[in-house]
């Protein structure tokens, strides 16, 4: 290693500055709307006049509750479907050396390069005019799964590339069939990445507007309600909802962190 000179120190300082500014840029708006959700004077919230009224109103708005519930269903359905397809594809691609693997890898990653609104409108046209399906929650799940599948595939692939396939061979030597090998060796090792893939696809589908809006018909979801109400101006109830969702996510992450720290949950075997 070369010694760290003053010039290199200046470069690192600049990069650190850029990183810190990026965090501020990314998080300031989010913390700002969480802050605004607690104040009465939402336009210019200084000095703050604290209030719970947006939360109280949110509690009363039944269409929001239905929207959250529907978004939850879409997130859960998309997450489950995407994980099943992505996990089996990633294992198949890495475990069995096939000459088709390049083609399949390209196919599985292709939804990343198709704009969301294009998936939305093409699903709308296809479901409506060819399959004759009305827009509902299942058609929204199917349309969202295409894009979520790619993200889930990437997340699972990232961990599987470090997976030691000799463990599978060892299991096979002792007579395990591929299915048993999956349940007893592969799955216990790679479950953190499947959980990660589920969370990523859940969140993408839960928040998705450009695919869901076109494939769901007239059923309300959280983003489509937000899209509809925003046309008539911002409703502060939305901020309180965002604050609640962010709080929940933060809470889940903290719990996961402590479970891992206390050793109650182990993030899989990592090999030598």
């Amino acid at each position: 290693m070369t010694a760290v000179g003053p010039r290199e120190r200046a470069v690192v300082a600049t990069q650190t500055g850029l990183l810190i500014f990026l965090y501020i840029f990314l998080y300031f708006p989010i913390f700002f709307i969480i802050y605004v959700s607690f104040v009465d004077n939402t336009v210019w919230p200084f000095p703050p006049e604290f209030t719970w009224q947006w939360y109280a109103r949110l509690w009363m708005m039944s269409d929001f509750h239905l929207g959250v519930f529907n978004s939850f269903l879409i997130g859960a359905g998309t997450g489950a479907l995407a994980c099943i397809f992505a996990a089996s594809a990633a294992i198949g691609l890495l475990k069995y050396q096939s000459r088709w693997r390049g083609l399949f890898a390209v196919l599985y990653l292709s939804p990343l390069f198709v704009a969301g609104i294009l998936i939305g409108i093409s699903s709308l046209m296809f479901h409506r005019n060819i399959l004759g399906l009305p827009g509902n929650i299942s058609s929204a799940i199917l349309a969202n799964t295409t894009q979520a599948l790619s993200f889930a595939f990437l997340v699972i692939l990232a961990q599987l590339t470090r997976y030691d396939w000799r463990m599978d061979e060892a299991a096979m030597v002792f007579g395990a069939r591929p299915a048993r090998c999956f349940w007893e060796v592969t799955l216990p090792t790679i479950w953190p990445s499947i959980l990660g893939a589920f969370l990523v696809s859940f969140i993408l589908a839960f928040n998705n507007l450009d695919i869901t809006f076109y494939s769901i018909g007239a059923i309300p979801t959280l983003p489509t309600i937000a899209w509809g109400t925003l046309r008539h101006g911002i409703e502060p109830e939305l901020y309180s909802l965002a604050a609640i969702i962010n709080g929940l996510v933060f809470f889940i992450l903290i719990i996961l962190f402590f479970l891992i720290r206390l050793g109650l949950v182990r993030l899989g075997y990592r090999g030598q």
Partner: protein
Amino acid sequence: MKSLWKWRQNNDFRFALLTLPGALFLLIFLILPLISILIFSFWRTESYELIADWNIENYTTILGEKTYLTFIWRSLVMAVSVSLVCLIYAYPVAYLVAKRGGRYRLILVLLTAAPFFTGIILRVTAIQQILGPIGLLNMALQAFGLEPIRILMYSNVASAIGLIYLWIPFMVLAIYLSLLNFNFQLLEVAYVNGAKPWRAFVEITWPLNWIGTAIGIVLVFIPTFAAFVTPRFLGGVNGALYGNILEHQFGATGTWALGSAMGVVLFLICLIFIMIVWRTINLQRSGYTGEEF
């Protein structure tokens, strides 16, 4: 020999069993819908109904009328400039995290992706709350008796800031993932041999990480080119982009056929952009060894 053949056959079967379900799913719910809008784009709409009357009028409308070309051009300029700004900003940040993040680098890079937990609409509204005429920035300037910054209020610059805000995490992640597999010792070799830092960057770091960087550029370009939420809330009167008129065809006007044609044009422009970027990739120069994954 025979048993070897059988084993091989068996593995091909297992490969198909595991990879085909997802591939079929994508074929039915991604590729067939895209083909269907290609077909519908040559049809005609009459009072909200599609009519199978083959013609190319939708395309002559899009490519012949100045309004549509203006929207395409505006979106193109927006997408290229947003990708460029994201690239220039994200590179040093990803470099710092990958090289000096140590055991915290995963957390540091995931922190840039965490805003995705909040939906796009809410984040765009948050930006609007800050940049708009009655937003935080403007009110603060007024409170201090300063002139408002007009260019940040309901303009293409405001849209660009919103789009950079939304998609820069993709660029950081793509470059970071590429740099993770980059051998930083190569730079030490270059320095020892007398290369200046910028030359080592131009001749080693940049070309060896170009694939990851190119993927980042494409991942920012596509959603920016197709954006409709951000320009709607931040763009103001002259800020409508291609995504907005596309969205319009499926909403109020219900001109499905024209909308399908616009979708096809969107797809083709993104495809051309991907091809241009792909042509700049030289696998040998990128350190590709023929090994996949």
